[in-house]
């Protein structure tokens, strides 16, 4: 079998993962010759962890996905710091900005997305941010933010979505005075209902973050801060822009490949040109939303099956998205349909609002399955609900217990007095000694814990029931 030349445009989380998945299936390059072209000069890194870098718990070099020698070790040709300029589909060739070109048998677009810059006067010109304003998207952005945000300095975050809040939490944890400006009336409105948004903002306020909701930034003055639509002012030495992203589709569009919000792909991750595939943030598949890593990784696995011929029937059918906020001191998960209200007739909806303790839990059940959920401040319940959602397992009969997780008291409280224990209760597990057996031994003359142990072997194993045996001896003595 001759090798196919697969060229991957983009060396981010999707492109790097695809390279790994292909080499996992074709370690010696017998089936696929692989070239990866990356615009940034960095080796691929894990964007999900940028908030940890911002929060100061991880060093920048710890978030890299592959070490510098990875490509060489695995026979992958890696070109870094060279943007692609044009795709010539007829010639099956990618032209690079430095004038060189690469021929392909199959091309994969993994070009990701770029930050969307809101129309704020003075914030950017021709797509370039003004001084003192930084997007929160790349490792370089992260280092720029850390360089600019001196401890105690006021910082404004434009955007109260997932990434904006993670950045805000990280910066607040480093000692910055953070204000989040968000044009919607509650934060993370894509994933949360208004109640959860309110509890989350309240929790974050307790961690030192200010919110300006329902108002947008109108003007940015470097060194001073932001003027908002409602006329108020936010002082900021630094503005972090996290107002959303747009799929990077320009190369595809210029090459005449069908593009909507992203590059349209089918279940085989093919674009309108069968020799060109797209995965990750730049791709648009009906089964998922853009901007998250899970779909990109699942797509990479399917595409690797197809490109290496490992499983030509492999198809991508979409990804069930789980939103998890990564912010120290806040535990938030949201899945599926979270906007259905408790008064909806078509679903069973439970909602528990304990904002004073930073807890909010909502469960939307349809056909006995989790259709959606928000779990804030109840970490173990979140873990269970996500598993039920992912696996499509029926929801337990006791919905409320599910929502409460471990905060629910144990179903069988331990008996307060030996008198309340049933006779069949096993007191000593190591030797299978029941309370009834101890009572019998006592009646036969064993009157102390030591004598009970000799007569029944209770407490002679691991010894953890010694207190209970003493308690029973005392109780029997007191009832004698």
């Amino acid at each position, binding site marked *: 079998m001759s090798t196919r030349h697969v060229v991957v445009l983009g060396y981010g989380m999707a492109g790097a993962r695809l390279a790994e998945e292909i080499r996992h299936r074709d370690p010696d390059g017998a089936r696929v010759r692989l070239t990866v072209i990356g615009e940034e000069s960095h080796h691929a890194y894990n964007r999900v962890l940028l908030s940890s870098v911002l929060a100061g718990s*991880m060093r920048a070099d*710890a978030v890299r996905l592959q070490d510098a020698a990875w490509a060489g070790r695995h026979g992958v040709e890696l070109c870094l710091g060279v943007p692609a300029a044009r795709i010539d589909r007829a010639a099956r060739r990618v032209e690079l900005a430095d004038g060189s070109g690469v021929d392909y048998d199959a091309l994969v677009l993994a070009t990701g997305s770029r930050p969307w810059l809101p129309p704020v006067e003075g914030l950017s010109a021709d797509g370039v941010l003004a001084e003192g304003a930084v997007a929160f998207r790349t490792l370089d952005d992260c280092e720029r933010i850390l360089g600019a945000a001196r401890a105690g300095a006021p910082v404004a975050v434009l955007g109260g979505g997932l990434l904006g809040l993670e950045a805000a939490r990280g910066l607040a944890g480093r000692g910055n005075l953070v204000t989040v400006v968000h044009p919607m009336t509650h934060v993370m409105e894509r994933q949360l209902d208004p109640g959860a948004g309110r509890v989350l903002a309240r929790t974050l306020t307790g961690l030192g973050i200010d919110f300006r909701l329902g108002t947008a930034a109108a003007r940015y003055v470097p060194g001073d801060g932001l003027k908002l639509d409602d006329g108020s002012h936010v002082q900021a030495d630094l503005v972090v822009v996290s107002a959303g992203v747009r799929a990077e589709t320009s190369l595809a569009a210029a090459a005449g490949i069908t593009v909507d919000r992203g590059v349209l792909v089918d279940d085989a991750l093919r674009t309108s040109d069968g020799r060109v595939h797209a995965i990750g943030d730049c791709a648009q598949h009906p089964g998922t939303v853009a901007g998250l890593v899970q779909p990109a990784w699942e797509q990479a696995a399917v595409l690797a099956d197809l490109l290496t011929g490992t499983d030509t029937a492999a198809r991508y059918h979409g990804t069930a998205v789980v939103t998890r906020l990564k912010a120290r001191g806040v535990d938030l998960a949201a899945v599926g349909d979270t906007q259905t209200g408790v008064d909806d007739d078509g679903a069973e909806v439970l909602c528990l609002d304990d904002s004073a303790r930073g807890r909010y839990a909502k469960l939307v059940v349809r056909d006995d399955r989790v259709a959606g959920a928000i779990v804030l401040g109840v970490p*173990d319940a979140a873990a269970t609900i996500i598993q039920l959602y992912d696996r499509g397992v029926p929801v337990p009969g006791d919905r409320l217990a599910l929502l409460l997780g471990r905060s629910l008291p144990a179903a069988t409280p331990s008996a307060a007095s030996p008198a309340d224990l049933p006779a069949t209760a096993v007191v000593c597990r190591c030797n299978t000694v029941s309370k009834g057996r101890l009572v019998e031994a006592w009646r036969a003359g064993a009157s102390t814990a030591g004598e009970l142990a000799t007569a029944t072997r209770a407490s*002679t194993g691991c010894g*953890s029931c010694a207190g209970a045996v003493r308690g029973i001896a005392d109780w029997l003595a007191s009832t004698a």
Partner: protein
Amino acid sequence: MIRTAESPRPTRRTVDTHCPYCALQCGMTLSRGAGTEVAPRDFPANAGGLCQKGWTAPALLTSPARLTTPLVRVAGELRPASWEAALDLVASRLLEIRAEHGPDAVAVFGGGGLTNEKSYLLGKFARVALGTSQIDYNGRFCMSSAAAAGVRAFGVDRGLPFPLTDLAGADAVLLAGANPAETMPPFLQHLRGAGAKGGLIVVDPRRTPTAEQANLHLAPAPGTDLALALGILHAAVADGHMRQSYADERTTGFEAAWRIAAAYWPEQVERITGVAAADQRRAAELLAGARNAYVLTARGTEQHATGTDTVSAWINLALALGLPGTRGSGFGCLTGQGNGQGGREHGQKADQLPGYRKIDDPAAREHVAGVWGVRADSLPGPGRSAYELLDVLGTEHGPRALLVFGSNVVVSAPRSAHVTERLSALDFVVTADLVLSETSALADVVLPVTQWAEEDGTMTNLEGRVLLRRKALDPPVGVRTDLAVLAGLARRLGQPEGRFPADAETVFTELRAASAGGPADYSGVSYDRLRAGEALYWPVPGEAHPGTPRLFLDGFAHPGGRARFVPVRHTGPAEPPDERYPLHATTGRVLQHYQSGAQTRLVDELNDTVPEVFVEVHPDTAERAGLAEGGLALVSSRRGAVTARVRRVGSMRRDVVFLPFHFPGEARANLLTNPALDPVSRMPEFKVCAVRLSKEDGAE
């Protein structure tokens, strides 16, 4: 009971010994007078404790089920025979089969409960008297993943590379897939310190009696432990707990291991395992914040087709936190069978020679052949691993005859219906057994052998300490030791007089010489030193050497002295649930039974407590399958079905059922299990397979 000073006390002979069951090898005294009784003894491993199995151990010595005469199959039935006739028959059949099909046509299967002397002599018997490469043992189903991972990380495998009493000083202990509250109850005493300090972490899909005592219980979906270990490692690094100086000075390979773990942040791992991200961070924090901490693994995390990698993932975590080779902290695995440690060191494993030597190492072959008085090139090479061996029995390219010592494979091996079929396809099966186990019931010749209290021998416990278990009483008339059986067979197979001694101390003296210079060096251990009460932990490379209670304090056993991180990734169970088999079954143990139950099912007090197989099911899952508490369920997998009594347990995961594997016949949990093998250790995937539940009446 009322005693008077005058009542005559029968004279009792009392001998210090050790329990016949698990690797904790609890110290006990055995006394004989009117009857045989045991009492706990203050020994470091059990500190005066005994569980119900230990207390009732003497019952089997006098059990009516004991075999006291050899049995030979005649016209389809096992009938009593004399020792002479039985051994003559075995030798002549083995010689015939070897002459016709070659030496590898005879296979040997050993056990982790056999003494060091028996393990050693069995390996020698296979390689020298039979000349076969086809020998392996049930420890392959037990310790092999932990052993393989230990060797690749540290250069040598000793279950606990420290005395287990060190655990008492720990502020935090993480148990991965261990349920000592049922499998070795007195061990729990050593965890009390960590528990009192809030640092006992238990990883188990079930809320076991051990998990109930934990300060933090992490319940991953079966088969996802590796991901969980990556998540905790990730949390440890991301939250700043990494011991960088230790990693720099004492290890290699962190970088590559971290590149993989970097893709397993706790929220990602939560989705795979069902363990809350916050709990993963808490586990990392408890271990990292402890002055002294341990990570310990056992079968729950090891008995997977990815068992070796899973143990490596736990070792990586321990290394990142700087635990192994640090006084007062460490990594270890809890060995299961009585001599699970010594049994894996002295040559009954397919790829090993005594002293934990590799059979394909020319220097090792020279040394051992020299001790045995044979030429190195006469020794066969590595043979098949346990399941692979069982799988080819009686096939065109597989062995035609099998000798089984100390194992009940038709109950304890995975996919047991198939294993039964393979055994039945053989021309000739011989077992050495105490009672007529399910495997012996299939044999052509059954040889009755002694038990723990009836013979001398050494055992190496879970911490690598060599123990002398002395003969306390005479065996029933008609019963011989396994050593005597091997000696008698060897002579009949033409081996020179004296090459296969039947005396335990003589065999041990030879074992010492054979192990000298190997990783598990016993050359300085002698019966005299053990009789004098010395606590000897291997290696003991000379009579004057005090032994090695703590390995790795000065360096690891790899050249250069560094421990190795191994880059491992999560792949998940070999058999994911699907529409036909929507649940996962996991198998395990109960307190009252040991291994295949061949011994404990014959002890009334134990068997009355847990007389039959059961299946633990979440009430919701039971409800959906129409199963009532105490009713019968049919649990089916692609390989077979088991009828089991339903126990509705509210703490079970809804997608998991649990069955103990101690029961025979149609109640064998191993009828269900998946023989997918670990590529390194050849461990089968006992702990997770896809099943469905239905009512027993067969209406599915």
